[in-house]
């Protein structure tokens, strides 16, 4: 059977749901726009016009969940990378809105630039489990108002997989649609292929950002999938118990689901979270802590309970540089999510609480994801794996090296072949120059960046996108 892991029993999930509904019904959520409040009022919400809050009933939540699709496919620019949800495995995504990059040449930390995002997209293209690309950092060398879209544009050019990003303002949408049309040809194709989805963060506690809310509502008209992604932190923007912080995050997610289903019923939604805890002394948001991933697993369970695809922040670390702490925390925050059958784990490639991009770390984290995936697949007990005949044939004191089933078994998916882990003899390892995971990853990054792109855009499409980038840069 597969290895599974959960943190909430059925009864405990019911308790979280009830507490979330109580929050929605009695406390309410702020939607700072009169048009949105009117829309929610027509759906049954109780509005406080002064506070701009809506109190949302359980029936509104139930109705919204009923119209949210339970299955859909995130298209890739290259259809070979189409990713069906729910997934049978945990795919990987980078984490967006980081600030810094470790320079590929010097290793020094500096503000991220557009080329870093392009490089990350190229590396991501090479990762088998990487199915959804969120441009990992914000390009400091682009004008302030264009940075999101510039990152999306360069990612479209260098990666043929599904793209996910934030849209912060309705003014960004014409540029975004222009780029998607350049690739797909029409708005209908944008709707059908779903090669782009948006990440939508609520503002904890219990608020929606007006500009982002209106922009995302606009995108629902094209059935652009939306990842609802609350981020309350225990003790600062959320209550200090993991249970109640999960209930708060769940309430925020449900409020977003109600919002977008009210705007356009049938809008594809992904249930998610990037909630966590703060460092009790400094207040810093901690991503690599056990308490963070425990909440992530709980939210993965809640999303599955509602029948929605699930993306959870994982493979995270608070370490400032690649190394032992980074790997320790990233394994800790990946394996439980894999065992909870999370559809997408979002966070590879970044360090320092998702602030700093490392191209090498993308590959190291991909290895962690693969290893955790293998763990989750567990042990297959089936007639195909019943090798009793070999045991009987070899008997006592022999060996199994020459058994046909050994040779085929070693080539089966039961054995994962790591690409970065050292499994050489000591002498072989010395002869190879004593490589470590990071140096191995550096070599691979160099090879990827120097290689011809595996799935480049047609030249005229790339030119069209670069023209839109120039237009955005000009307008600032």
């Amino acid at each position, binding site marked *: 059977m597969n290895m599974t892991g959960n943190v909430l029993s059925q009864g405990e999930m019911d308790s979280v749901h009830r507490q979330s509904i109580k929050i929605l019904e009695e406390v309410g959520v702020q939607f700072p726009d009169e048009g949105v409040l009117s829309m929610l009022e027509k759906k049954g919400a109780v509005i406080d016009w002064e506070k701009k809050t809506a109190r949302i009933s359980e029936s509104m939540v139930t109705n919204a969940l009923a119209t949210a699709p339970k299955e859909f496919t995130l298209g890739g620019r290259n259809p070979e990378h189409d990713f069906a949800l729910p997934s049978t495995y945990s795919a990987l995504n980078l984490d967006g*809105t980081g*600030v810094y990059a470790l320079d590929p040449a010097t290793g020094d930390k500096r*503000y991220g630039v557009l080329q870093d995002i392009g490089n990350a997209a190229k590396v991501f293209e090479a990762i088998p489990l990487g199915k959804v690309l969120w441009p990992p950092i*914000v390009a*400091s060398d682009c004008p*302030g*108002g264009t*940075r*999101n879209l510039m990152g999306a544009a360069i990612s479209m050019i260098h990666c043929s997989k599904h793209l996910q990003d934030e849209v*912060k303002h309705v003014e960004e949408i014409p540029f975004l649609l222009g780029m998607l049309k350049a690739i797909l040809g029409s708005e209908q194709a944008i709707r059908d292929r779903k090669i782009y989805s948006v990440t939508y963060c609520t*503002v904890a506690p219990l*608020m929606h*950002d007006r*500009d982002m809310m209106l922009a995302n509502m606009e995108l629902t008209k094209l059935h652009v999938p939306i990842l609802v992604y609350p981020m309350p932190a225990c*003790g*600062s*923007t959320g209550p*200090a118990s993991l249970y109640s912080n999960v209930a708060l995050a769940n309430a925020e997610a449900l409020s977003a689901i109600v919002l977008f289903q009210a705007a356009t019923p049938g809008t594809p939604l992904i249930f998610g979270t990037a909630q966590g805890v*703060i*460092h*009790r*002394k*400094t*207040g*810093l948001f901690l991503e690599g802590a056990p308490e963070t991933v425990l909440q992530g697993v709980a939210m993965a369970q809640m999303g599955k309970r509602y029948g929605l695809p699930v993306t959870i922040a994982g493979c995270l670390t608070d370490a400032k540089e690649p190394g032992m702490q980074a790997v320790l925390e990233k394994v800790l925050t990946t394996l439980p999510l894999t065992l909870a059958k999370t559809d997408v784990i979002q966070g590879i490639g970044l360090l320092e609480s998702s*602030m700093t991009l490392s191209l090498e770390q993308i590959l190291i984290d991909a290895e962690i994801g693969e290893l955790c995936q293998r763990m989750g697949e567990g042990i297959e007990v089936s007639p195909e794996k019943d090798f009793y005949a070999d045991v009987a044939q070899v008997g006592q004191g022999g060996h199994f090296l020459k058994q046909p089933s050994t040779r085929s078994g070693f080539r089966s998916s039961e054995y994962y072949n790591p690409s970065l882990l050292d499994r050489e003899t000591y002498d072989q390892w010395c002869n190879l120059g004593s490589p470590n995971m990071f140096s191995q990853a550096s070599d691979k990054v160099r090879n990827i960046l120097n290689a011809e792109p595996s799935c480049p855009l047609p030249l005229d499409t790339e030119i069209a996108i670069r023209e839109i980038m120039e237009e955005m840069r000009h307008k600032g």
Partner: protein
Amino acid sequence: MSQQLEEMKNAVLEGDEVLASRLAHYALQNHLDMKQVMDEGFLRGIQEAGVLYEQGEYYLPDLVCSADAMKCALEILDAEIKKPTSGVASKGKVVLASVQGDVHDIGKIIVGAMLTASGYEVTDLGPDVPNDLVIERAVEIHADLIGLSALLTTTMEEQRNIVNRLKEWGIREKYKLIVGGAPVTHQWASGIGADGYSDDAVGAVALVDGLIE
């Protein structure tokens, strides 16, 4: 008197806003010596909270509770403290804001609490504050220092815009200006012409202490 001073210290140390307020009223009603009330009462509480924080026994929420209890007492004692005869000097006036377009303000709230507890008069303008409003309020209250918070890389540019706006108005030199927020660094701060940066609230108090002497 010594018992009341001890209670004042403990009220702040334990973050008891109700008790701190009651003791502040008591001090007013009984015409207690303001310098003594502050130095041997309330201020001792916040100082001890700071020591416990440094020792790892107090966490950030404990410190914020102490700071807010201190703030409650200060608000009640405000008029009396400001009298020249009180012997209690304000350390300076600070305007804080999360920049326009940025709705995140938990970090700024914590910095505000710490600065208040340390003896600064803090005007917190809240989140998503228009650039010109920040400057207008600084002018209006004769601020010594402006503190600008930004959580997002897309909004941190507003910190630079406010610095430039101050220059346009010819009043940049009238104010010390500090910046903070997740994407902000020393490099950014110096690059935009800010006077300083801290990556946490306790450091922010030390920074402001250094800038306003």
